[in-house]
């Protein structure tokens, strides 16, 4: 407390402060990078969430694989065991779960008042807050995906070819982006983290069971087939499963026999892109109000 403010600081203040925000893009990047950096510093100092996020899907892989180990050969498609079948489901379920939780840190920032620190700052766009969360969560999801892919390869599920892996990455990104957007929308709409956790709780597992993650459509009663074939998760799971089993995939490959007809890989991707776009658009009004 001994330093006094010098006159040079004052003159600097006069000039520096009124300087026009010359480069909006550079400023947007600066604020986004700084906010993202904060999330990664948190992760680095509290690595338990990352560790749990990697261990959990690996346990799913092992446990689910073991549960159905003695299922009759060919039950899940010709010549594949359950271990090969379940990999795609675990990848999508894990990415989905992670993205669903994306809103929690933002909710805590709201509750603790840290968000106010961001809102009183002259951010170029408050979407940098959303952007930072999205970058953080997608990075985490990709790390988890890599772990699952490597682990299931060890467990004998094999590996998709290079273009297949690229497709897996693309699908995970689309899903994570869409679900993260929805979660952030909730984080700005619900009154507190208790409510957000409640929503996550009632969404997570039901959507898993009402998808093709654990069993193929053909196993389900007709009503559930309808539900599962309207569930966006299925549109992420089935293409990934297909490229795991077929190296000769193309956009025209039929990946799902829905009650209303065949779904091709290309159509599934379109559904995901659509889902993502709808999710991003649907949170716009809420964010605009929160950021007004």
């Amino acid at each position, binding site marked *: 407390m001994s330093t006094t403010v010098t006159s040079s600081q004052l003159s600097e203040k006069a000039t520096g402060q009124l300087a026009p925000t010359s480069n909006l893009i550079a400023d947007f990047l600066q604020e986004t990078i700084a906010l993202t950096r904060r999330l990664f*510093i948190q992760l680095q100092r509290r690595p338990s969430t990352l560790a749990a996020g990697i261990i959990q899907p690996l346990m799913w892989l092992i446990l689910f694989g073991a549960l159905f180990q003695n299922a009759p050969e060919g039950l899940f498609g010709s010549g594949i065991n359950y271990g090969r079948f379940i990999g795609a489901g675990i990848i999508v379920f894990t990415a989905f779960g992670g993205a669903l939780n994306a809103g929690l840190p933002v909710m805590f920032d709201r509750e603790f008042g840290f968000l106010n620190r961001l809102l009183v700052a002259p951010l170029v766009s408050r979407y940098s807050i959303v952007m930072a969360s999205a970058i953080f969560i997608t990075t985490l999801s990709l790390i988890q995906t890599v772990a699952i892919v490597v682990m299931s390869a060890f467990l004998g599920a094999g590996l998709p070819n290079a273009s297949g892996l690229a497709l897996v990455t693309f699908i995970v990104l689309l899903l994570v982006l869409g679900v993260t957007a929805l979660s952030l929308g909730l984080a700005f709409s619900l009154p507190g983290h208790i409510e957000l956790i409640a929503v996550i709780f009632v969404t997570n597992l039901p959507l898993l069971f009402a998808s093709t993650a654990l069993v193929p459509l053909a196993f389900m009663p007709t009503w559930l087939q309808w539900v599962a074939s309207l569930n966006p998760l299925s549109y992420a799971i089935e293409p990934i499963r297909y490229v795991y089993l077929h190296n000769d995939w193309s956009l025209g490959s039929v990946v799902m026999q829905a009650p209303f007809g065949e779904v091709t890989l290309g159509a599934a991707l379109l559904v995901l892109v659509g889902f993502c776009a709808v999710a991003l658009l649907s949170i716009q009004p809420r964010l605009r109000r929160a950021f007004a």
Partner: protein
Amino acid sequence: MAPAVLIENLQKRYGSVEAVKDVSLHIESGEIFGLLGPNGAGKTTTIRCLCTLAEPDAGKIEVSGISVTENPKLARQHLGYVAQEIALDKVLTGRELLELQASLYHLPRSLAKERIEIVLDQLGLQDYSDQKIGTYSGGLKKRLDLAAGLLHQPQVLVLDEPTVGLDIESRYTVWSFLRQIREAGTTVLITSHYLEEIDMLADQVAIIDQGRVIASGTPSQLKDKVGGDRITLRIREFTPNDEAERAKSLLESVPAVQEVIINSAQGNSLNLVVSAQSDALSTVQRALQDAGLPTFGIAQSRPSLDDVYLAATGRTLLDADLAAAATRDEKAERKKQMR
């Protein structure tokens, strides 16, 4: 030149609660402006509107001539805001938080580095800058919060109850810091419900109650305006109503006594306004004695800002605070605070 902060006829309601009914403030550049009032008076809401955290329902707010509603981004560059609740990230180090803050205000890297060193020095934080904020004491956290608010060298630094819950040493640190930045030309808007703090620090004061400004001026102007001296008198520790009323009518007939208020929240103590003459105390005591009333305690003082508040509202700040605390609704508070 435009005033540092201009607020005209501000109104803001939350649901059915009119948090701010009509507030106008005129804050000149380079002064410490104190906003004084009990809890729930509308201080924080006024500040939230100023700092673009809440949208006013009506009224005009300008910072150095820039409208905060029409040009919020530019206005934010001129404002530094230190909230009442200390919202820091306990996982980050002090320096990392300041780096984040610098990026949010788009300071170039080299300038940010330089400024961070300056504010760390200014607030005596150098020794702690690379420790995690989670290890900081309450006083250190507040100092870091102040450092963050000042990092971009705003023209107006807005502090909402900066010394609530601080130990006395940290309070002194905050006070001397505020005086220092005033010397450097920064305008400071500070809210408080500590009278002494505002009395001592502020060049200009506005007293706000139930969403309205009820008095404004320099602290000594305000005190002079209420005039006279104050006598606080207790007949007994807890005086019965009838006895208090009796003493009141008795004392009102004493020539030196201008006004008598029964303070029911303080065990029916009597607050007297007396002409500023030296023998008022003994005159009052004698009058009580002659009427056969005991004296549990009696004290004479110069008028304080509390008396300014008392004269305007008929209750003391402390009572108003307690009354406000009783009516607080947790849900409504959360709704106001959270975005």
